[in-house]
């Protein structure tokens, strides 16, 4: 059981990159971008094909990121230059990418288990540091394969979190945020909203594809169907994170999303332990989690508001009683 949780944190840290990408499009640009389902696999496909072809896995992962950036830019161009509705631009791109991903891979599944990947490289680098032995002596009985992946992937997630925090505060980042917030306004301040949206969607999908490339290396295969429902998982992470950890500022929100992505993995792992459920129910569980994360905070808020009103009502009526009592007393002394 602890190992299962440990693994879900590992995977959660990698999926957090995808969730941060979804945050950029969905929250910052206010653009529900369904490209994610396709670009996640594009990242995986590009990384896998290059690694099998003997390219250094770090370069292969960077290439995966670039492929996602291009896919996102294309969605942006469809929307801004082609004037296609955001949802439809994403769907079109997603469906087009399905075929493109198959072309990139040449077949529907590429195994990576026998290949030298970023994960194997990072693990052997980590082993050379000797930290695993130290931690094992600290916590006897709890022996994961390695602490390397969890630590390094969390570091990577936080690196990108801080990069996003910083970027969204720069002049160009502010303009991107304004493009998602009030387009009329930002256009009147000489910003090319088309360009900003294309750039924003490119960056968003670059993160998604990076996540896809890493997941392929983590799971040991790239599969053409691995992106199905990815956007919902991303949204689930964003929404759970915001509901649980809050999203007052950008820095807080990006932190919340990493938390949300990890939390989502843990919830799914726990749900699958219920005897009655099996892996085929994953998508249903995901949908239920998102619905829950959307509805429950509203219910809590309503409940609070009702109690606040009740309290206020009680206060007012008590004051009135006291007042009328005083008046009564005053009237009596008068007579």
């Amino acid at each position, binding site marked *: 059981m602890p190992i299962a949780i440990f693994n879900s944190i590992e995977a959660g840290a990698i999926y957090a990159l995808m969730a941060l990408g979804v945050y950029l499009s969905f929250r910052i640009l206010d653009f529900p971008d369904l490209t994610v389902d396709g670009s996640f696999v594009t990242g995986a496909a590009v990384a896998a094909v290059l690694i099998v072809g003997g390219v250094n896995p770090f370069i292969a992962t960077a290439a995966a990121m670039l492929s996602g950036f291009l896919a996102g830019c294309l969605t942006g161009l469809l929307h801004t230059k082609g004037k296609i509705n955001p949802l439809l631009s994403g769907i079109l791109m997603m469906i087009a990418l399905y075929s493109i991903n198959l072309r990139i891979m040449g077949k529907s599944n590429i195994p990576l288990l026998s290949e030298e990947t970023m994960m194997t490289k990072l693990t052997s680098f980590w082993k050379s540091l000797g930290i695993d032995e130290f931690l094992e002596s600290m916590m006897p009985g709890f022996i994961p394969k390695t602490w390397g992946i969890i630590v390094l992937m969390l570091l990577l997630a936080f690196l990108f979190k801080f990069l996003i925090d910083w970027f969204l505060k720069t*002049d160009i980042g*502010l303009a991107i945020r304004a493009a998602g917030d009030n387009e009329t306004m930002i*256009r009147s*301040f000489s910003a090319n909203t088309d360009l900003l949206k294309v750039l924003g969607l490119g960056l968003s999908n670059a993160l998604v594809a990076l996540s896809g490339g890493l997941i392929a290396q983590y799971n040991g295969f790239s599969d053409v169907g691995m992106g199905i429902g990815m956007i919902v998982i991303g949204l689930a992470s964003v929404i759970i994170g915001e509901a649980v950890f809050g999203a007052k500022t950008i820095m807080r929100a990006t932190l919340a999303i990493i938390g949300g992505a990890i939390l989502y993995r843990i919830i799914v792992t726990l749900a699958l332990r219920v005897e009655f459920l099996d892996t085929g129910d994953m998508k249903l569980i995901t949908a239920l989690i998102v619905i829950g994360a959307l509805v429950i905070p509203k219910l809590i808020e309503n409940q609070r508001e009702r109690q606040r009103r009740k309290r206020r009502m009680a206060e007012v009526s008590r004051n009135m009683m006291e007042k009328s009592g005083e008046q009564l007393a005053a009237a009596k002394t008068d007579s």
Partner: protein
Amino acid sequence: MVNSLLQLKQIHKVFNEGTADEKAALKNLNLHLAPGDFMTVIGSNGAGKSTLMNVISGKMIPDVGEVRIAESDVTFWKEHKRSELIGRVFQDPMAGTAPSMTIEENLAIAYTRTRRRGLKMGVAKNRRSFFQEKLEMLHLGLENRLQAKVGLLSGGERQALSLLMATFTEPKILLLDEHTAALDPSRAELITELTKTIVANFGLTTLMVTHNMQQALDLGNKLIMMDKGQIIMEATEEQKQGLTVTSLLEEFQRIRGEQLTNDQAILI
């Protein structure tokens, strides 16, 4: 012509051409603003005031005619490119600011209107004190709330901020599109006063559309009246001083030979 900041030459604009709804929004319109001019534009609904604004701001391209700003022909410039030269305040107080961003972030966006946006921090220390100094001009205490989200401000405060954001980088042309129409009378009064001070402070060349005749008379040094896509009356500085709301209404009747539509807004 030299010494002209804004020039419109023979502008025509038709909507829904060739259909039953065809409407000539602007007909052979000519307009000229010298540096420092503050022109107010009045006219009933459908007179073409908004189309005039949109043609200048670049939101619409005229069918025929030329738009020149500061001596360059901007007729076919894209809206965002043109807004390097133009400051705009909209009628809707929500339109001119980004609600989920802070006051200082909004100001940073306005600050970079005439600059290239790169990877510099939007709100650096030196900029912040500059923003504070500018906000003090509004006398609304906003200089102490730099990190407040703009969505939390009242309509009047947001419009005051929009006005400041549109002006403090000293655009060549300032366009005010009924920017007090959506506010209650006391807030409208405040924004009108601020407009007066800010325009005078920065010496901005301004074009203001308004439904409020009294405001059109109180502000600015030139006035035009529009009807059915044309300028039907133009008052110079001296002529404008002698005008009153009643004389404006009479003038309209004399020119058009008909009663001004019983439009409540225009009689205020």
